[in-house]
């Protein structure tokens, strides 16, 4: 086994993933957000069969009944046991998303130019990329290296593509090392290592269906970028944004979205408070955001595209409501905001692994 890290170019996506020493190609792909079909995960069932187009791999423990001799001769491998021995190009049984632009991942040292409080526990941070062109699709995220913190943290980009500065929304996670630093110690003029863009959460522009955006808390970031981008491009289908927060003081960019709704006849904005206070004088929607979505659409979602961004319980409740209203996984796109503390995701069956 090699102790080097190799690059694996995954066709037909054209995306590259890094595979660490001892790591399988399947593991590396899944961790980079590329879903390869798989089932047994130990070389017996052959669901994860791939073709190695270039380079060399160690076939590992693939069963002789799951990976035939003639297939080995033809360069097939099982991704769940195959480990690269050089940089390789593989072809996998993946549906190509016609909307994926596959922009290359860049590593940039960015300068913090502005920090503003957006809501009670959310700060906006604006980054100057120092003249580096940084193409991304609205909805994607970047990874930040936060000084003094191990590993990287993911934050969605809130600005539409093409703007000069990158905008991030950072919610203060109680006891969270990285967000505490970003809230309390970061100042204008500081430098931050940024890599990206990452993720498969972006608008499926090949579809002409009306769109529903559901955002929870700082999960407004991606939808803001996506909606600003769509409206600027002049799309004509209906766009409805629901933003769920607890109280009035948690709501942000309210003025911006009210203004956009006035300006664009096809855009509707619905802020929702789950715990309005008497002093908020709130007359708008209340309750959980998915409940407001159900009321707004009378519980029928057939014929829409839905984009959900926010904490896992909101995403789960949103998916349930949409599915009950006859919208299914191919039309539901989600970005779950996990914190370092929710590393343990609930166990899922292969039924929903694509979602």
């Amino acid at each position: 086994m090699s102790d080097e890290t190799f690059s694996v170019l995954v066709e037909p996506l054209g995306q590259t993933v890094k595979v660490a020493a001892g790591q399988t190609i399947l593991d590396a792909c899944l961790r980079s957000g590329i879903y390869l079909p798989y089932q047994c995960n130990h070389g017996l069932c052959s669901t994860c069969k791939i073709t190695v187009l270039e380079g060399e791999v160690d076939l590992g423990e693939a069963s002789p009944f799951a990976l035939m001799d003639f297939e080995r001769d033809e360069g097939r491998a099982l991704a769940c046991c195959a480990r690269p021995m050089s940089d390789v190009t593989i072809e996998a049984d993946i549906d190509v998303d016609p909307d994926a632009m596959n922009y290359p991942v860049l590593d940039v040292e960015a300068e913090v130019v502005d920090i503003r409080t957006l809501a009670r526990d959310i700060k906006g941070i604006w980054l100057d990329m120092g003249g580096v062109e940084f193409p991304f699709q609205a909805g994607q995220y970047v990874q930040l290296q936060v000084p003094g913190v191990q590993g990287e943290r993911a934050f969605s980009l809130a600005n539409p593509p093409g703007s000069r500065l990158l905008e991030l929304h950072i919610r203060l996670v109680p006891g969270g090392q990285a967000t505490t630093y970003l809230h309390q110690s970061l100042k204008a003029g500081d430098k931050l290592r940024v890599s990206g863009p990452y993720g498969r959460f972006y608008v499926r522009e090949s579809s002409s269906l009306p769109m529903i955006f559901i955002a929870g808390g700082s999960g407004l970031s991606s939808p803001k970028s996506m909606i600003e981008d769509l409206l600027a491009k002049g799309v004509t289908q209906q766009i409805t944004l629901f933003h769920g927060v607890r109280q009035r003081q948690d709501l942000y960019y309210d003025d911006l979205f009210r203004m956009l709704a006035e300006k664009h006849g096809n855009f509707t904005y619905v802020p929702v408070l789950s715990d309005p206070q008497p002093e908020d004088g709130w007359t708008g929607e209340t309750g959980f955001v998915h409940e407001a979505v159900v009321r707004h659409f009378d519980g029928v979602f057939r014929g829409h595209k839905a984009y959900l961004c926010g904490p896992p319980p909101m995403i789960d409740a949103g998916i349930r409501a949409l599915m009950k209203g006859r919208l299914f996984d191919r039309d539901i796109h989600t970005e779950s905001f996990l914190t370092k503390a929710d590393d343990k995701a609930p166990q899922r069956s292969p039924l929903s692994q694509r979602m």
Partner: protein
Amino acid sequence: MNAMPPLKQRKLSLKERYSHLTRGLGWETTYQPMDKVFPYVSYEGIKIHDWEAWEDPFRLTMDAYWKYQAEKERKLYAVIESFAQNNGHLNITDARYVNALKLFLTGVSPLEYSAHRGYAHVGRHFVGAGPRIACQMQAIDELRHAQTQMHTMSHYNKFFDGLHDARHMHDRVWYLSVPKSFFEDACSAGPFEFLTSISFSFEYVLTNLLFVPFMSGAAYNGDMATVTFGFSAQSDEARHMTLGLEIIKFMLEQDEGNVPIVQRWIDKWFWRGYRLLGLVSMMMDYMLPKRIMSWAEAWEMYFEQAGDALFEDLSRYGIRKPKYHEVASKEKHRLSHEVWSIFYNYTHAAAFHTWLPTEDEMKWLSAKYPDTFDKYYRPRFKCWSEMAAEGKRFYNPTLPQLCTTCQIPMGFTEPDDPTTICFRSAEYKGERYHFCSDGCKDIFCYEPEKYVQSWLPVHQIYMGNCGGAEVKDVLDWYHLNFGVDNFDYEGSPDQKLWDEWQAQKAANPV
């Protein structure tokens, strides 16, 4: 600066290539109306609006399929050959193990053949090209499984008893009507219910409880030939399980009205499958000389844990866990003991041998079933072993009452009381029908017209349709050799032969 490299012509994905290859296969007929050509596709009440929405999980062409299966066959038969040449049967842990194979060959392998027929039938009757191709390939897989299993185990037939006429026994022997009627229930349902019963409930939800115990059991007990056909079959399972998930998803997404129909099928086929697995539970806890894990542990791992994740995902579609799953969990600490006891009672009419667990084996059972074994079952085995020592080995001289639905003798106990036999009954057109559980009763009551036709072996024997009035006559009719294939392992020709081999081995150490 130009950051983007020019976009190169991207390759077609496997899915796209496959759809180019198969386009146009699901054409609209013109000489005859569609509903005449596909007469079974609507009467179950399942509404399909768009067959094109079926995502073909197979993506395999016929020529590739032959190539794969041919190599699997070559490898398997090479192993079978070398197993025979090396007298592999001498290396198993103990001859009692072969009784698990007798159960498998008579109870499970014929089901593979029934599955072959079932998939061939429904493959003809779906309108969409996707499910038709999927069913066609699975039909051929199942035929292959049936054949390779028979070929693998035919080696044991040269030395051991009870393996000589599995196909005939499957159609006649009393306890084999349990798996046989299970599959005939599925095959005589409509095409959508068939796929829900076999592809989803059996292959997807419960398969690990059938295949893993038998194949790990084979590996633990030195039967490498059987392990190899297990691998060979498992390499097809990915396709079969994917078909099970796809059909469920497809029905649930196509129409809201399908949800309650699918739920009822999941309820029914969960319970039918679970009852069938009672045979596996006794195999795991009593028939393997070297055990893998207990039935209770297997149920927890493969149904309770894996099922939780699956049914959590299905709940988004409005599907809940199968009805009576909690009864199955309550029964996990007693199922195998109750089933083994039934066979101990009736070993004079069975195609395999039974025995009482040894002291060491009872220690294992106590450890695996701390709340039930010593309290309820050890005293029973102690009593039977004392009776046998006095020359009064206990046989049940009358024939048991059978459950009309699952056809298992009424030996199961009340969900909340392991000391009281559970009896349920229902009346239909002036006749009273009996059931082992609420699950089996519900299934009958929903479709009584179907289950009143059950061919219940005990009734048939009493009606004189099974060769005669004596056990020996019935066994002749089963093609069982009285005094050879039946009765206890202790004193059987199998045991005699095995002991001779062991003595030779001891006399001629390698």
